[in-house]
């Protein structure tokens, strides 16, 4: 089990009803964190449309997560 801080942005924040939470999770990768928080908050956005960052660095869904990491979940972007 790892202590993971998860930060939610834009529509993810609205779905979760909070911008950040620290969870104790049995996870190996960023994908695992996304899937567990998705079921927790009832979101079904496919990961292919979304992005993830670990400790402020953009990462792949298969990137490993460590105890104490902060995972940033970015819903589909729309700048400009």
């Amino acid at each position, binding site marked *: 089990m790892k202590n993971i801080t998860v930060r939610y942005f*834009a*529509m993810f924040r609205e779905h979760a009803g909070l911008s950040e939470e620290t969870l104790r999770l049995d996870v190996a990768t960023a994908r695992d964190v996304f899937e567990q928080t998705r079921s927790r908050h009832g979101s079904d956005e496919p990961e292919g449309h979304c992005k993830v960052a670990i400790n*402020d660095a953009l990462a792949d869904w298969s990137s490993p997560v460590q105890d104490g990491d902060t995972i940033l979940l970015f819903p589909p972007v729309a700048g*400009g």
Partner: protein
Amino acid sequence: MIEITDYPIDPESLRESLADDGAGGFCTFEGWVRNRNEGRAVRRLEYEAYAPVAIAEGARVIGEAMQRFPFLGARCVHRIGTLEIGELAVWVGVTAPHRDEAFKACRYIIDEIKVRLPIWKKEHYVDGDSGWVNCERCAAHAGE
């Protein structure tokens, strides 16, 4: 090189900041808030960004543009917060010795910024509804 601001963007001061005696061409792109999207009348937009990652990724985009289309100077500013119709949401400016690099680098920078930076846009419609852009599932949730 790239900034995220919650103040109105001032194109004139940005233009002056790129002045360069070696530049023969200066190309800009301005993204404006439009009153319609996908058939719906829009009242205003709300932009949100995660600046630490947006600025780092924006710097990577500008670096890539420099490698592909060598230019002299480039700046990009993206506004966040609530924007009314007609306001300036994003500004990109590029100087180069000749116009071709300026046009191409400017185009590359805005195209990549739109799809790679953690910036989100929520449309508030004239009918009172609202929705996050590029987020179809989200729209389905909003209707629930």
